[in-house]
């Protein structure tokens, strides 16, 4: 259930599912997201799920907050319906030229390089949401002793394909962009494909991601 619905400006609804970040709350958000999209409510122009919120944008020329709120309150949500999810393997190279923040992580986490990589690769991650820039997946959760803060000063340019860590989350930079996450490695895979309009994202909310370590020569082969 939605805890609270308020307006976000004059052309969006802000649906609050709670303060915590966990799979259960996020699964509810995704179920609502799917139901809202399926229901084709007149005037809805965007539905944005995140860890524990759902934002529903609408066209103020043809509808308004009151009308959409009413539609959402009476919406039928199929809680039993399982979210279809895939398991996706992402090759990651962690050699020196790619693991830009490994030394920072070693200090912050009080673990050595091998321990960090072992913990990182020996886990399945859940995709909570995608966005910020096109296709970027927000994955979790990292082990308790793998959680580091963002960089004090964010990088102006994080290379495309970088794998970042911050708090309980890990992500993949789908484009070169500014960013403050701790970079542990880089994937040669194209995680976002704008020419595949029906399914541009390799990873979608609800999917499971497994990272697989590769060497730099294997990395190069992807680009051949």
């Amino acid at each position, binding site marked *: 259930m939605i805890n609270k619905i308020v307006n976000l400006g*004059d052309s969006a609804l802000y649906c609050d599912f709670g303060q915590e970040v966990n799979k259960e709350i996020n699964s509810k958000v995704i179920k609502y997201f799917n139901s809202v999209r399926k229901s084709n409510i007149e005037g809805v122009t965007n539905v944005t799920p*995140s860890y524990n919120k759902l934002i529903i944008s609408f066209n103020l020329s043809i509808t308004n907050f009151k009308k959409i709120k009413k539609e959402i309150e009476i919406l039928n949500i199929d809680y039993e319906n399982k979210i279809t999810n895939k398991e996706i393997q992402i090759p990651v190279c962690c050699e020196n030229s790619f693991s830009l923040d490994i030394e920072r992580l070693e200090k912050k986490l009080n673990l050595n390089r091998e321990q960090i990589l072992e913990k990182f690769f020996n886990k399945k991650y859940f995709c909570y*949401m995608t*966005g910020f820039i096109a296709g970027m997946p927000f994955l979790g959760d990292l082990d308790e002793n793998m959680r580091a803060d963002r960089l004090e000063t964010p990088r102006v340019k994080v290379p495309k394909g970088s794998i970042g860590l911050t708090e309980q989350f890990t992500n993949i930079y789908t484009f070169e962009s500014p960013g403050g996450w701790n970079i542990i490695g880089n994937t040669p895979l194209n995680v976002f494909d704008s020419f595949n309009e029906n399914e541009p994202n390799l990873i979608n909310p609800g999917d499971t991601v497994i990272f697989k370590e590769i060497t730099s020569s294997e990395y190069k082969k992807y680009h051949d």
Partner: protein
Amino acid sequence: MINSYFELIRSGINTTYQDKGRENLYHIGIPYSGAMDNRNFLIANKLVNNNLNAPVLEFAYQGPHLKYRGDKISIAITGDVIFKIIKNGLENVGNCYESYQIESGDEIDIISTNKSTYGYLAIGGKIDIKYQWKSCSINTKAKIGSNNGKKLESNQTIKLLNLNSNKDKKKIDYINSKVENIRVIKGTNFNYFSDEGIKNFFEKKFTVSKLSDRMGMRLQGNKIDNILNTNIKSEGLIKGVIQVPPDGNPIIMLSDHGTIGGYPKIGIVASVDYDRLVQITPGSKIKFTEIQLTDAETLFKLYEMDTDNLLSQI
């Protein structure tokens, strides 16, 4: 197949193809994009008999200098724009909100957007460009849209697939009004800020930073003090959201914004003021006033009626 095209002698600083933008893609990280100033975009298209959602050239600060080759065509420029039309070596100062007939060899030199940020050039015909998710709008950050998602560059050409047959002169009397007072609806994290911070937010003026672009408008001059938490769990953003990062300087999300953000939201710009907001230039002042939801809804309806009224006069 027709053989009419524009040659870009100079591309300008930030020239892109834009239409209304794309919907229903926030969840994969793709914002609306589209023309920043919707009213000026619509008027430009109407002046040259285009479909209202046809692609136009949007430019900022210094616009493009174009040379035309082909059959007679009509063009129109909207905004607060200084430009010249050059025919047989003779320069004529052009007027915004008025269509012009252009012949082979003529040049259009868009010198500046004067005291505004964005201007529009509509071309009476169909431009040969690619669409992604039903929109030509260029989002340079995610490399999406026509022209491979990149700004237009000098020496490239703008090819036309067909030209509109009706090339009658059209004009309206309209002044691109400038405001510094922007109406804002309280944000979902309003209570994260100190009483003094909120007082400063609504009573003092901010200066628009030079770092502003199609993604966001950065403001300086009054730091907004956060008393609860400088981060929230990342969540969706919309156009017009005003986020306050830990340094206390607000950032307003504009049409190419990131779709997810983790800074507290102090307010959201009312839709009625969005077209005017984006036209405020770096270095200018901006002031916020609080508005209630129902008033914002009513004022937006009136603004739309006014836009429709302008379009019906063309």
